[in-house]
């Protein structure tokens, strides 16, 4: 046996992300992740800082070249330094923070609600072909209707407050999580289920000791997709009617204040929020998969 150089199956699912985030650094360190999950995650990121910085510099350079070559006016594409200055300024003078906070709350609540519902429904769908047959047309239909079209309606029903945004977020998160959970639980090795049956495991024990651990990589994949969609959902919800939030600030900066650097700074904030949420899920994934 090559001993510690191999590891259980979740890796193919985990690796693409680590590949994109840290360009494959610190793979060897990953293996004994059990107890050192979080520390190792840091170590990997440190190992990957070089390429990340290089990529960022290249990004900014292309931005500047595009402005120079295309002779783009600041209201079409402001310069990176203008956006950076406005970004810092907006956070320093308290313009950004209240909007960002509103959006964060919407995203977190919406994600939590949508993911919980997705897990529960995904499990039900996996358990019963009948339920799947009866419910999936509605689920697919709900997913196929553009959330952009649904948002004004939900705003009308649930008012301009937090609730409508949380529902929009939850709706958009629900589908990928439900499908990932269903597929994950369906793909559990039947031989392990037979083992559990031979050991007289109860329905609940099968769920906690076999189905959840076996489906976890797939479920976490669904959560990764879901959490980035949650940010989209919050912004769309805010566009449909709100008085606060990053989506509102984008509209405000563009339509009323004509402050294009602020608009771009807000977009940067939204992107950072998405990256932060995604990283949290990846971190949770390392923890869970490590502990297994």
């Amino acid at each position, binding site marked *: *046996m090559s001993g510690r150089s191999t590891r*259980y*199956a979740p890796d193919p699912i985990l690796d693409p992300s680590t590949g994109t985030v840290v360009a494959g650094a610190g793979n060897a360190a990953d293996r004994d992740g059990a107890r050192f999950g979080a520390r190792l995650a840091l170590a990997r990121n440190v190992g990957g800082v070089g390429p990340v910085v290089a990529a960022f510099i290249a990004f900014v350079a292309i931005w500047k070249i595009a402005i120079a070559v295309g002779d783009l006016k600041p209201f079409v594409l402001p310069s990176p330094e203008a956006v950076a200055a406005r970004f810092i300024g907006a956070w320093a003078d308290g313009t950004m923070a209240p909007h960002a906070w509103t959006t964060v709350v919407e995203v977190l609540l919406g994600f939590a609600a949508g993911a919980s519902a997705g897990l529960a429904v995904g499990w039900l769908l996996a358990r019963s072909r009948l339920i799947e047959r009866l419910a999936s047309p509605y689920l697919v239909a709900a997913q196929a209707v553009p959330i952009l079209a649904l948002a004004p309606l939900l705003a009308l029903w649930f008012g301009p407050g937090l609730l409508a945004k949380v529902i929009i977020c939850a709706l958009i998160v629900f589908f990928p999580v439900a499908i990932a959970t269903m597929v994950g639980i369906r793909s559990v090795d039947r031989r392990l289920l037979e083992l*559990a049956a*031979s*050991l*007289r495991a109860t329905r609940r024990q099968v769920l906690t000791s*076999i189905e959840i*651990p076996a489906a976890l990589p797939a479920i976490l994949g669904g959560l990764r997709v879901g959490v980035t969609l949650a940010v989209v959902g919050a912004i769309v919800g805010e566009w449909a009617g709100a008085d606060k939030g990053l989506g509102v600030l984008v509209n405000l900066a563009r339509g009323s204040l004509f402050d294009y650097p602020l608009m771009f700074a807000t977009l940067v904030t939204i992107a950072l929020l998405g990256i932060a949420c995604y990283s949290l899920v990846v971190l949770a994934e390392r923890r869970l998969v490590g502990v*297994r």
Partner: protein
Amino acid sequence: MSGRPPIPDQAGSRPGRLVAEDLRVAFRPPSRGATPTVALDGLSLDVAGGEIVALIGPNGCGKSTFLRVAAGLLAAERGRITLDGRPITAPDDRIGLVFQEPRLLPWRTAARNITYPLELAGWSPERRAVRLAEMLHIVGLEAAAELRPVQMSGGMQQRASIARALALSPAVLLLDEPFSSLDALTRERFNLELLRLQERTATTIVIVTHSIPEAILVADRVIVMSPRPGRVAAEVRIDAPRPRSVEMLDEALVSRAAADIRAHLEIPEHVA
């Protein structure tokens, strides 16, 4: 049972007596109108407490099906199977089952795989730890307790799965070609270890195998099964004392038993 003389000096006296009476198992046909596959038909078998019986037979003769019925995972269409007089209708913690492949939970360490049945049975962590130490010692996995299945060799994995099957101290251990993926030398060592283990635990053992040498080495009795539908075609006693070792088995006895088994295995296919 069924006209066979009882096993001398043991029958009924020691716990772990497994009796199958006239078992029939048929699998539903894949399509309507097709005839069902009859895996077992009229299989009767009486295994005394503490006895080691090897089941041998051609592929598809229902050996594994029999083990699944005995483990309570599969219901017989007709006939019944009892352990110490009590019918087996569902999985039972007096019966330990070892599958052909180790079937460990890949996300658990060897230790947590071995204690898995204890967890399911609601043992406290303290009791589990005590039992784990015993089991690790018995199967010689003390050094590998914290390894995950992928970090273990095939032999280590199968040791862990045997320890898991024995964790609840079953009266009967059922093994479904447990060593078929091991090389010949390792396999022989595992067979001898299984015998030593059996001496310590006095467990009744039913082992399904494809290997005539393996059957002769471990078993008190070799049951030769007919091609599908499976029933007992013949039984061959291995009159060698236990504890056994490879050297002890005298060649004449082995070749006679092997010839006997082979003769019964070579039932022409068209009979079925």
